[in-house]
C-alpha cells in the first residue's frame, strides 16, 4: 500500500474553506482517544474543555482576555509567514514589550503622573518589541543568519532578562521577597470595559489590529508585495520588490504587535511585572496564525478557539484532574492536522494498493 499525492489542476477553494474544520474534527477524535487512555470519560472531558467555558459570562470574558494577546501576536506573525520570513520568537518580543512598558510604570510609581502614562507605556511596549524583533531580522538581512534559530534563542534571553529585573532592581520592596514589581498605579493600568468585569481595553486594540491587518493585506501595495514575495519570490524579484526590506518591515510590525500585547497583558489582567506572565502565548499564536489560514478574520476566530482551550484546560484540571499538559498536546496535534488538511488544498491523496510502477521521468 502506498500513499500518493496528486497535484490538483487548481487550488480547491471549497477545501480551503472547510480544511480548518476538518482539522478541528480530527483533533477532537484524537483527543477523545487520549482522554480514554488517561482513564477519563471522553464525552464529559470534551464537554468540560469546549462547552462549559461557553456557558457562563465569567469564562466568556476570560476567553476574550486570553484571545487578546493570541490574536495580536498572530496578526503580526501572519504577515511574516506570508512574506516567508520565519519569526518564531514572538514569545521573546512579547516579554521585552512587557519589560519596556513596565519600565515607565515602575519609574512613575507613586508620583502624580497623569493619564499620559498608559498610552506612553503601550507605545514603549510596541517599540521594545519591534526593536527586539529587528535583531534577528537584521542578522538575517545583513549576514544571512537563520532568523528561525536567532529569534528563538532570543526568547530564552528575554525570559532571563525579565527574571533578573523582577528579582533585582525592580523588585517590590514590600513584596515579601517575591519576584515581582509593585502593583502598577491606576494611571498605568489598562482600564476594564465593564465595571467589575475582566474584559479590558486590550480586546478593542486586538480588533483594531485585525482590521488594520486586513486593510494592509488587501488594500495596500505593501500588503500586495508581502504576499507576492512569499508566494512567488521570482516574480517579486522581477517586479523589483525589495524582499530584505519586507523582512525588516514584517518583523518590525510583528514585534511591535507582540510587544504591545505583552505590556497590555502586564498592565491589564496581571497588574504587575513578574516571571511567567505568558503561558506560551508567543508559541500558541503560531498555531493561531496557521489555523486562521494567515487571514486576519480567520485569525480572530482561531484566536478565540485556542483561548477556549486554555480556559477549558484549566477547568478540566480543576474538575477532572486532567493534567495541564494535555492542552499543549492538543495544540500540537491541532497544528499537525491543520497543516495536513492544508495539503488537501493543493493535492489529492490517493492510496494505491498494488505495487507502484517503476519510477521514471524527473519531477
Amino acid at each position, binding site marked *: 500500500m502506498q500513499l500518493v499525492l496528486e497535484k490538483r489542476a487548481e487550488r480547491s477553494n471549497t477545501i480551503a474553506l472547510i480544511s480548518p474544520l476538518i482539522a478541528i474534527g480530527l483533533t477532537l477524535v484524537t483527543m477523545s482517544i487520549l482522554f480514554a487512555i488517561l482513564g477519563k470519560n471522553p464525552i464529559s472531558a470534551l464537554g468540560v474543555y469546549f462547552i462549559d467555558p461557553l456557558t457562563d459570562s465569567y469564562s466568556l470574558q476570560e476567553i476574550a482576555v486570553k484571545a487578546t494577546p493570541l490574536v495580536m501576536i498572530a496578526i503580526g506573525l501572519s504577515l511574516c509567514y506570508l512574506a516567508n520570513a520565519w519569526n518564531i520568537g514572538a514569545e521573546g518580543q512579547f516579554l521585552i514589550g512587557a519589560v519596556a512598558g513596565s519600565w515607565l510604570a515602575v519609574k512613575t510609581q507613586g508620583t502624580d503622573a497623569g493619564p499620559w502614562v498608559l498610552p506612553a507605556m503601550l507605545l514603549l511596549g510596541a517599540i521594545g518589541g519591534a526593536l527586539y524583533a529587528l535583531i534577528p531580522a537584521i542578522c538575517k538581512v545583513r549576514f544571512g543568519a537563520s532568523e528561525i534559530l536567532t529569534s528563538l534563542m*532570543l526568547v530564552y534571553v528575554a525570559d*532571563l532578562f525579565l527574571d533578573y529585573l523582577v528579582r533585582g532592581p525592580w523588585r517590590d520592596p514590600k513584596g515579601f521577597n517575591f519576584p515581582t514589581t509593585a502593583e502598577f498605579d491606576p494611571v498605568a493600568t489598562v482600564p476594564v470595559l465593564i465595571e467589575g468585569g475582566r474584559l479590558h481595553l486590550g480586546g478593542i486594540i486586538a480588533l483594531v489590529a485585525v482590521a488594520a491587518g486586513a486593510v494592509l493585506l488587501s488594500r495596500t501595495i505593501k500588503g500586495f508585495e508581502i504576499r507576492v514575495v512569499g508566494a512567488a519570490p521570482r516574480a517579486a524579484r522581477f517586479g523589483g520588490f525589495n524582499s530584505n526590506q519586507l523582512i525588516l518591515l514584517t518583523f518590525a510590525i510583528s514585534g511591535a504587535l507582540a510587544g504591545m500585547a505583552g505590556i497590555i497583558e502586564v498592565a491589564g489582567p496581571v497588574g504587575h511585572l513578574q516571571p511567567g506572565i505568558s503561558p506560551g502565548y508567543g508559541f500558541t499564536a503560531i498555531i493561531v496564525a496557521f489555523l486562521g489560514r494567515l487571514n486576519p478574520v480567520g485569525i480572530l476566530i482561531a484566536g478565540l478557539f485556542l483561548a477556549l482551550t486554555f480556559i477549558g484546560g484549566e477547568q478540566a484540571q480543576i474538575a477532572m484532574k486532567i493534567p495541564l499538559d494535555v492542552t499543549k498536546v492538543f495544540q500540537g496535534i491541532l497544528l499537525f492536522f491543520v497543516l495536513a488538511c492544508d495539503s488537501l488544498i493543493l493535492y489529492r491523496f490517493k492510496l494505491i494498493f498494488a505495487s507502484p510502477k517503476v519510477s521514471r521521468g524527473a519531477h
Partner: protein
Amino acid sequence: MGLIEAIILAVLAASTPLLLAATGELVTERSGVLNLGVEGMMIVGAACGFGGAWLSGSIIVGALCGIVAGVLMSLIFALMTLGLAVNQVAAGLALTILGVGLSGLIGARFVGERITPAPKLRIPGLTDIPLIGRIFFGEDAFVYLSLALVGGVWFFLYKTRPGLILRAAGDNHASAHALGYPVLKIRMLSVMFGGACAGLAGAYLPLAYTPFFIPGMTAGRGWIALALVVFASWLPGRLIIGAYLFGAVTILQLHAQGWGIGIPSQFMSALPYLATVIVLVLISRARTGGSTAPAALGTVFVPDR
C-alpha cells in the same frame, strides 16, 4: 581531583547531548529535510528514557526507550512532510509543541524519582593516570558512543555509496529521482535516524547528566543542536568542535556563577543562547560567498510517478 580536570569532565558531559542530537540532524539535513522538531524529539526521549530506566532499573533499556520515542516522533514528522508534503518549518514547530506537551504527560509520574546514573568507564591503570586518565578513560558510555557516531556518520556520508546517494537526494532531489533513487524513502530513513539520535540525546540528560527527570529539562538544547549543524557547515567533523565549544560555554558560565563574579546569574545563564546567535551571525557572514547548505534543504518533493 584538580579543578581543570573537573571542568573538562563537566564540559564533555554537557557537550554529549548536543553532539548526539546535532549528528542526527546533520544526516537528516544532508538528505534535504529540515526537521526543526529536535527539541520536541529530545524532550520526549528524555521522559521516555527516564521512564524506561526507572521502571526496568536498566540504563540500557532507558536509552533504548529514548531512541524508540525519538523515532516515533520523527515518524509523525516524516508522515507530514514526506507523505503529505507539509511545509517543513511549520511541521517542525508543531513537533516541538507536541513534544513538550507529551513529555509533560509521560514524565509527570516520574518527577521526584531518582535513578542510579549511567556508570563511568573504569580501566585499572589507564583511568588512574593523573590528569588525563579520567578524561580519556573515565567517561560514561554515551560520551564514547557520541564520538563513534560522528566517525560513523562521516564514514557513511563520504566513503560509502549509500552516503553519496543520500547527499545527492539532499542536493538535487529531482535528479536523484530521475536516476531512479527512492528520494522519499531515503529521506524517511534519514529523518528516522535524526529522531533516534535526538531521542538518545534527550535520554542522556536524565540517565547520565542529572539522575532525575524535570519537565522542560532539555532547555533549548535541541535548538542549539540545530544551530550547531549550521556552525559545522554540514560537516560531521566540525560538529565535535562546535559541540565542545558550546559545552564549554555552558559549564564556564555555571562555574563563573559559583565563583561569585559580580554579574547577575541570569546574564551568565543567557550566555549559551547569546553565543548561539553570535556564532550563527559570524558563520553566516563568513560564508556569504557561497552557501554550503544542502541545495534542496527544506524544499518539498512530490514525485510524479
